[in-house]
Structures are given as C-alpha cells and as structure tokens.
C-alpha cells in the first residue's frame, strides 16, 4: 500500500464537510408557502421571527434547530438548489420535478397540498373543430418546455415550445401561439381568457424532496425529519 506522502496532507483542509454542517431546507416563495408552513411547524420546525416579516431582507433563516436553516427561493429554484446539493431538503410540486427530471432529487413524501393539474388549453373557438389525432406539430406557450415536449413526443407530436414565465393565458388571444400548457386549479382563469382545457397532462401536489447524496450520507437526520413531518401531519 502506498503512504500519503507526496502532495497530500491527510486530514488537513479537506473539502469534505463535517457531520455538524447545518442542513438547508429550501421552501418555495408565494402561494405554496402559506400551505407548507403549518406542516413544517407541526413537525416542530420553528423558523426565527424574521421569517414572517415581509420587510426583512434576509435570505437565510435560522430555526429552533441549530442544525437546520431555511432558505426561501422561487419554486423552480428549489429543485435546482436541492439537485445540486446546495440545499439538502426542499418542497416542490411534481410539475417542477418532472420539468427538470433531475436524477439527484428524491421525493419520499407527498405533502398533499398545492393540488392542481397541468393541462393543455386552447382557444374555445378553435377547440370545437380541432382533432388532436391529426397533429404532427404544435406550437405551445408554456413554463414547462421539457415536460411539454416529452408529453407530446410520447404520442408522436413534435411540440415547439415558447418559454414564458407567466401570463400564459394571454398568448393564444394575442396570436403568439394557439395552445398553452399551464397549471389549472379551478379553470376560471382559462375561461376568463376564452380558453378551453382540452387535455390533462398530470395531477400536481407538493412533495417534500431530498438531495440524493444527502439522503445517503445523512440518512439518520433526514429520516427523523421525514418521520416528524409525516407522522405529525398524518401523511403517508
């Protein structure tokens, strides 16, 4: 066996993290946050007071557990932070998870909140005579280009996706494209914009997600958190 002679000083200044490194929980800003917080709090994770202060400019928040910190980022970014291991835990809808399809994210807990569906919609006038089985190509405005492309490819339709970050419902009426793929909860927004839902792609709920490496190397801590969240909230 070789000795660690030339080049390496064992144990000194390694870039390996110690076991006492705090864990980061990434939560999505906005609508879902209101639904998530009761679940997080019920599991005994209480963020510092600044977390509820809209004027605070903080991005990282401590909790009653010195080894757990919370960050608040956009819902799509939660998945990215967790996939790269910058955050160890997070909450994200399966729409976001499917859009990125990161192999490094585990979703071991369905939080049973944030219910909605991802659907294809088009102008009501168009939908009357439209026959989807004749399509070979569609142009779609969406926040989910990968998911949309995959969905249509499965039935042999090439989807040309125009990536928008919001207000998808405007696209058809202004002639940007004839169809959109977007989240639908009641369908009221679609109706108000003269659109009809023609196909559901998938049902959405929010999931508690875990970085794969963290799941393998800090399993005990993570299992405890998962158990607390699951048991205290009566989740499967």
């Amino acid at each position, binding site marked *: *066996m*070789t000795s660690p002679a030339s080049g390496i000083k064992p144990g000194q200044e390694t870039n*390996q993290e110690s076991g006492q490194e705090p864990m980061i929980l990434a939560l999505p800003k906005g609508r879902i946050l209101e639904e998530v917080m009761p679940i997080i709090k019920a599991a005994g994770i209480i963020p510092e007071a600044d977390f509820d202060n809209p004027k605070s400019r903080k991005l990282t928040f401590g909790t009653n557990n010195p080894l757990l910190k919370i960050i608040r980022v956009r819902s799509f970014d939660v998945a990215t932070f967790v996939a790269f291991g910058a955050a160890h835990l997070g909450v994200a809808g399966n729409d976001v998870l499917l859009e990125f399809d990161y192999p490094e994210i585990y979703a*071991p807990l*369905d939080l049973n909140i944030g219910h909605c569906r991802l659907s294809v919609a088009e102008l009501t006038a168009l939908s009357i005579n439209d026959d989807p089985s004749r399509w070979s190509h569609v142009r779609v405005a969406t926040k989910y280009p990968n998911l949309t492309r995959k969905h249509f490819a499965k039935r042999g339709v090439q989807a040309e996706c125009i990536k928008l970050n919001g207000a998808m419902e405007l696209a058809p009426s202004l002639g940007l494209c004839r169809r959109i793929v977007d989240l639908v909860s009641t369908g009221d927004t679609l109706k108000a914009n003269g659109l009809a839902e023609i196909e559901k792609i998938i049902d959405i709920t929010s999931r508690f997600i875990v970085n794969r*490496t963290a799941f*393998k*190397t800090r399993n005990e801590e993570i299992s405890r958190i998962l158990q607390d969240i699951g048991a205290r909230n009566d989740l499967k």
Partner: protein
Amino acid sequence: MPRPEDEPNETALLPEGLHDTLANDAEYQADIVEKLRQCFASYGYERVVPPLLEFEESLLCGPGKAQSRNMFRVMDPVSMRMMAVRNDMTGQVARIARTRLQNSPRPLRLSYSGSVLRVGGSQLRPEREFQQAGIELIGSDSGEAYVEIILLARDVLGTVGIKNASIDLTMPLLVPAICRGLGLDDKISKAVRHALNVKDIGELDNLDGDIGEISRQLLSASGAADKAMAIIGKLSLPAEAQKICDELKEILARLKDVAPELNVTVDPGEYSGFEFQTGIGFSLFVKGVRGELGRGGRYLVEGNGKSKDAVSEPATGFSLYLDSLMRAVPKMTEIKYIYCPYNMNMPDVNKVRLEGYRTICGLEPTKNDTAEARRLNCQYIWQNETVIKI
C-alpha cells in the same frame, strides 16, 4: 452556439463540457490516478490499456448497449467501418477478458484507467470528457468477490485521503423479481422500479395489493444497513426475491465482520446506472460532494459468440469517476519551488532537488535574484550556499 464573428477561435473557446486542466490540478490528478493504480496492483489487479476508440459493435455489446446514444461515432477511412469512442471502460475490459485473456486462469483481476467521452453531459455533471479508473474481478460469482471489491474500494479511497466514504448497496434485480413472483406485468414492474429509484412516494400511492405494501415498505427501508435489513426481513417476498435479499444479508454480515467501521447504507430501489447488472450493486458517496464518486456491482461478460465453448462469465467490479473524486480528495499540499540563480553549482542543484524542493534554474544572470525568484513564484531561493525562505 458560436456566432460566425467568433471565428477564428482566437479566445480558444472550448466545446461545452471539455476543459484544460492546468499546472497543479493536472499534476495532482495524475498523482491520484497513480495512487489508485498502485493500490489496485497491491490487491493483485493487473493493468490493461484498451484503445480510446474501437469498432462500434465491440463497444455496443454487453454493458455498452444501454449507452449507444451517448457515444461519439467516427468513420474509419481505413476499414470503412464505423468506430465509436468509449464512454465507459468496463465493456472494453470485459471484451479483453472474453477474447485475448480467455485462456488466463480465473478469477481474473484487471485494472484500468483512462479518459472516456460522451456525447452529452447532464446539468449536474456537464463534463463530456473525464477520467475513469477501476477494477474488474472476472470469473467468480462468490459473495466473497463482493467483499473483496468493497474493501478494495474503501482502501483505494483511503489511499488518496478520503476517509469518510459511505457505501450504498442496492439490489437492482429485486423489484423485477418481486413483480415476477407476484405475477405482475412488465408495465407495473417498470413503474414500481422507477418510483423506488427516485423515491417518489406519489407514484406508489396508486398501487394496491401486495406490491403496493411491499414497495412502500421498500421505499421506507432505504437508509442505514441495520434499519433497512430489519424492514426487509419482515416482508414476505417471493422466493426469487428472497434469495436476492439473503445474498445481501450475507454480504452485510461479512462486511460487519471484517470491516466494522465501514459506513454502509442499503437502498433496495436504486436502479439507474445499474441497468446491466445481475447482482448486488453499490455506489460510493462522500458527505457534501455532489453525486457518487464511483459505482460497482456484478454483471455478465457474455461469451464470445463464435468460439465453440461460449460461456458467459460473472464479473464483479467498480469504477471511480475522477471528476467527482477530485472534489472529494483533500487539498494538495503546497509544492516547494526554489529559485537556483544562474551559475549555481550543479551538485548543489541536485542536492536541493533530492531534499524535496523543485528547482527553477535561472537561465541567465539577473540584477536581483530575489525579485526574479518572486516573479517566478518561488517561495525559496539559493543564496550564500544555503536555502533561504523568501
């Protein structure tokens, strides 16, 4: 996409996923690869060096099949046949064992290291070229072969200064075996396998009956080996699946015996990356380092179709990925450079070199040797017949 005005490429922009490794990093990486090789050799694994590219059919047989789309192809103008660039060396080593070394005594122990190339990187691992190093133990299907390579994996990581690796064992054949035993079709089997692989509880919610209960239990089982085996032990599984779990149990018992300090976890559902495997698989992780450092397991080296005694051989081995590995190793110690001014005695130069300094010799006289030494990033200088720290 580079625009036409970016041509000619005066800024030396490299294609996506390719990069130059410079000075200390390049040296450290070579140093690490050499240490890996020495450790492999000390366990009796002999180094083989397959070529960077070969005829596409040879790379696509066996373990390479799943990788077909991720290989660069090039037409060989000499033979007028298609060649492919390797994107994994395991298949090449298996080919060597099956052909050139078919008459060598079994079990055969081979090691390798080299660059591999793939058409597309992933967002998490954008590198399209990286080095791979590993070993294969060919011609034994014993449980002891797993123990040997897992211990070798631990030791080889220790050799390069990684002490806290954890080993995650998986049973890629377990879910298909359970589904077969329960008489379920391929579609359900694939869905369950996928859901367990990405730990997607949502996907499992719709499953009723035995498979629903078993798969939810399996998902909750992943974690520390003892906890996992306790949960798996309580399940009533079809015979074929039970056999796989028993094999894992035996390996875990052996590991506990010979390497009690080893950090072992079990993930019964991990599947991606183990598609071609035929037994227990494992991945190596280090806390805080993105992705795995390496992967191993068992697969079949398919017999040479043309020879009359074409028998498939079981092989057990693992690969390390140098890009991940380099993120996990300790920082390199500082290298000591000494400036040897013009006209320094040759015997003295050799003497300081033997003392472990790296000598940067002045090729012409300078007005101020210390300033020259600084300019050349030397921390030491030879002055008044002795080594002086600057």
